[in-house]
């Protein structure tokens, strides 16, 4: 639940056509994982609200963790004027947005992502087990027990930063990233989990693999990425047979 203390929102023009919204939790609320997740959901809702209201005036609305960057359709739209309108809207809807974030109605459904945690794809599980002093089965159990919130999409198209893993399995990125991480690899870095939508270099600790499509480049715009900032995610363990059946591959 977002605390009754409404996040302070600063809204500023930072370039010719760019408006940055920053949402700051008060220091006593900022550390809580639950508050950080709620904040991501809140930002997702603010984004939807602004999109509904101002649609054609904006070129981009980029949400992330505790901010929302808006690129205005300049010079057709004058940023100073719309800045004023954004401030009015956000402040008038503040209470409603907090209620929405907290309420169970209007909650987006939790997206379930099937994961195969087998040894042949869980490339860093053994090393993590040694570092964290936890059995591999325990790491998997803690990973899939959590409900995650999409805090940001970036780094590469469709790459979702999922907050937050159980602190017992939080671990730093690998000091030497892999030159190649297989598409669909599920990993942990610091306090977050993430999935590589395509094969790429990467430094996250890999503990499983999914065939769930995170980025479908030839799909129509609304179906490009199934995950959006504010969405809830759960990992569901599946066996090798099911994974291969779904089209998964255990190759490098």
């Amino acid at each position: 639940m977002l605390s009754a203390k409404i996040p302070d929102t600063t809204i500023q023009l930072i370039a010719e056509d760019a408006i940055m919204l920053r949402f700051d939790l008060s220091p006593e609320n900022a550390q809580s994982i639950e508050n950080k997740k709620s904040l991501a959901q809140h930002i997702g809702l603010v984004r939807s609200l602004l999109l509904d209201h101002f649609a054609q005036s904006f070129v981009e609305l980029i949400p992330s963790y505790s901010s929302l960057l808006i690129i205005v359709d300049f010079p057709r739209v004058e940023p100073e004027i719309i800045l004023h309108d954004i401030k009015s809207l956000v402040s008038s809807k503040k209470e409603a947005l907090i209620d929405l974030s907290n309420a169970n109605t209007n909650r987006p459904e939790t997206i379930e992502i099937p994961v195969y945690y087998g040894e042949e794809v869980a490339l860093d599980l053994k090393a993590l087990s040694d570092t964290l002093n936890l059995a591999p089965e325990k790491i998997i159990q803690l990973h899939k027990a959590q409900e995650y919130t999409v805090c940001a999409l970036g780094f590469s198209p469709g790459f979702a930063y999922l907050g937050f893993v159980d602190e017992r399995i939080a671990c730093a990125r690998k000091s030497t990233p892999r030159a190649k991480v297989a598409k669909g690899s599920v990993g942990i870095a610091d306090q977050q989990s993430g999935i590589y939508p395509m094969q790429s270099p990467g430094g996250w600790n890999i503990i499983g693999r999914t065939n769930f499509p995170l980025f479908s480049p030839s799909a129509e715009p609304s179906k490009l990425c199934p995950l959006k900032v504010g969405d809830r995610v759960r990992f569901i363990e599946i066996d090798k047979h099911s994974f291969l059946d779904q089209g998964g591959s255990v190759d490098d």
Partner: protein
Amino acid sequence: MLTTKTLAKLNIKKAGAACSIQDLGRKGFQYLGLSQGGAADLHAYLWANYLIENNAGAAAFEITLGQFAIEFEADTEIAITGAEANATINGESVALWCGLKIKAGDLLEIKLPRTGLLNYLSISGGIQCEQHFGSRTIVAREKTGPNGGCTLKLGDNIHYLARTSKRKSTRSTPSHYIPDYGQSINLKAIPTPASDYFSASEVERFLASSYLISPQSNRMGYRLKGASLKSMSSGLPSEGINFGAVQVPADGNPIILLSDRQTLGGYPKIASISKLDCYQLAQRRPGQEIRFEEASIPQCQNGLREFLNFFGL
């Protein structure tokens, strides 16, 4: 739909250091982590289309460091803008920054530029290829866009419209609009408002210092070497990055983020560079000098508004 138009091929004989297809870039996809892409020097790109009365956003070639040659299958009209380079059609010198007539079978060459980095080659009607995310930009870093997200190479065939131009006159860019890319550049910088990340004196130091462009500079961003900047914070939660944002990573060397930048970043930002100045920056080479001058948002908006209005955007 391409089937209703008659298409002609052009064949790439030399692809130079890097050659890609560019236009105005993608709009509305950064929230998914897709780069904006688009022509790095929007000024020269828009002129290239304007000179042959193309739509402002028609896809064109972006050629890095010349050494480029193509053969046309059918008549058309073209224009070459950007870096100061010798260009020839069938061995005969032709001028840059003006419309040029092409006949079937013509061989166009663009040599290594003396100053500047990028040339734009526009073709009447624009390059015909499929759009990805509403744009024909190739973002090689992401491997997204037409041509499998790859830069063009020897032997590649690119399509354009086979049609004859009815225009009698050709346009050319007045010389006072043609930039001198060899000159060192002063970039207008809008300091980040109310910064918790940089002290006032550090911002002053940034604005007063001179920098050199490092070799680690490309379409993603230009890294600068010079006075190392100290942030009061080691990192912040990743946030969206606007075109022209100046990030300062742990090593203190500022980076100016451009067309192929990643959508999110966690390094503190000290300023944003005027977009018009970023287009000029994209023509500078490693080793060239950069200085900054503080500018206001309205000042930068005035210049940008005038520029975009001229090209109908």
